[in-house]
């Protein structure tokens, strides 16, 4: 199962890098949000209750990362739906490979691509004056957590794709990405969100992922939010992967 999973992961990555229409939005859209938010909302750091941080850019960088990783997950779903539509999926399932490698390959690709995405936003942040409070070790933690978050998002994208079967349906999930983002602590501290967003964000796993990514950058090695970030991300990976595998089984229910 390992060799086919790696080969399928390599293929998925290769195709992503050969599709500018897939690749560019992952970097461009969050960068635009990052620029607009840091340019226009920097004074929010002076609001009572806003955690003490060296700058609003430091605080916003994880939001850009999470946004990029969620878009990447959605695109993983779109890519799978396109494979189903085109018939490539049929080619895969007539090959003598463990069918789980179809899911595993896509998750491997998401994890590797996430390293590039997270590193990109770290470099952008550093160029524009952000600092990683926890140093190099903190940056490594951010890269690892970012990769794991990407795996979770890709699994969710695949679970949707196996059920939807059509790329346009998966693409239709795009607005939900932003709804989920804004109903989390990705852009603003949970304490400053009004009701019911504050309650929703407390239950939104994305809040813990964003806080886990944010802490090493903006606040240093505070282990509670970091570990919560890893734990919640791990839980989402497990649940989303089970959903993706269930979706795959459902998709193959008419096959032998």
């Amino acid at each position, binding site marked *: 199962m390992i060799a*086919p999973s790696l080969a399928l992961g390599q*293929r998925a990555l290769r*195709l992503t890098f050969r599709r500018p229409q897939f690749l560019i939005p992952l970097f461009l859209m969050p960068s635009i949000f990052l620029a607009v938010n840091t340019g226009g909302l920097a004074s929010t750091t002076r609001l009572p209750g806003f955690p003490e941080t060296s700058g609003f850019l430091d605080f916003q960088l994880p939001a850009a990362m999470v946004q990029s990783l969620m878009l990447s997950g959605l695109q993983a779903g779109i890519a799978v739906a396109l494979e189903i539509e085109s018939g490539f999926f049929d*080619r*895969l399932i*007539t*090959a003598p490979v463990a069918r789980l490698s179809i899911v595993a390959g896509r998750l491997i690709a998401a994890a590797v691509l996430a390293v590039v995405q997270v590193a990109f936003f770290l470099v952008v942040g550093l160029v524009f004056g952000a600092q990683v409070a926890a140093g190099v070790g903190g940056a490594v933690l951010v890269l690892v957590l970012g990769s794991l978050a990407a795996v979770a998002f890709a699994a969710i994208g695949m679970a949707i794709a196996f059920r939807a079967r059509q790329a346009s349906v998966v693409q239709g999930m795009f607005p939900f990405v932003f709804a989920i983002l804004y109903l989390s602590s990705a852009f603003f501290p949970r304490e400053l969100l009004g009701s019911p967003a504050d309650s929703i964000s407390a239950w939104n796993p994305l809040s813990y992922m964003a806080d886990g990514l944010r802490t090493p950058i903006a606040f240093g090695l505070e282990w509670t939010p970091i570990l919560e970030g890893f734990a919640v991300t791990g839980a989402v990976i497990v649940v989303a992967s089970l959903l993706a595998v269930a979706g795959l089984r459902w998709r193959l229910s008419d096959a*032998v």
Partner: protein
Amino acid sequence: MPPHAIVTTGLEKRYPRGGTYAVRGVDLAVDPGEVYGFLGPNGAGKSTMVRLLVTLLRPSAGTAFVAGHDVVKNPAAVRANIGVALQDAAIDPLMTGRELLRLQSVLHGIPRKAVAPRSDLLLERVGLTEAGDKRVGEYSGGMRRRLDLAMALIHEPSVLFLDEPTTGLDPSSRLLLWSEVRRLRDQGTTVFLTTQYLEEADQLADRVGIIAGGELVAEDTPAALKAQVGRPHVHIGLCDPADLPMALEVSASVGSPRPGVTPSCLDVSVDHGSRELAALVRVLDDAGIVVESMAVVSPTLDDVFLQKTGEHLAEEAAA
């Protein structure tokens, strides 16, 4: 283990929604090394049959063995022994031919050292050596089909399924694919080929199964199927329509004549076709009848299809 490369007994696929049968009660047996042509119009059940045999669909009833393995009980063994080129050559346009062959090799567990030489050999065989490092998006339809075939052959399967491999191809690409199928047969590979082209089935298949409405309505060698429809006949055009009665009389010594569709022609049913041509020329000449044209007309698979289903396949395919 069954001695056949493919055996089905009462194979059925019924869709729960509407309860329609896509394939109904199909019994067939394909010998190792045989090219079996599955002929039928669009929607007849050809692709469903292939999808059942390559484990993409679960049968509603009946059994199917491919390469000696039950498609339901041991699908993994079936998949390891078959090559599949489905109707739509689902090939990534952004990948090169060589990259796709490499991927297919890994999926089939081919040792890394063997991948490059095997890919080179297959690219050469399907005439894509030059294009191997180009992205598939730059390929023509024929080139994609040939690459699809190469991918299906990467692990040297014992049974190859080709679902309408030449639909929409230009004549030269079609001939290239035909020659490759013949070469595979010569090497002992079993080929299960679906087609809606009469000529393709006639030229390539050792045996032809005719499917209509999901049911196998006829099966035999192309020659035997055509023989079931009737004998060949010689179509004779006369210079003078007034000679027709005499022509009918004298040609009765060679075959069974009947008036043709115009007043100046007749059709003579004969046993073999070309063998009786000389005798016909002789008797007509002896009677002083001037012949304008003569042609041997043999029954076609379309005639077989017409007899079995009441419809012409040629018109369906053209439509």
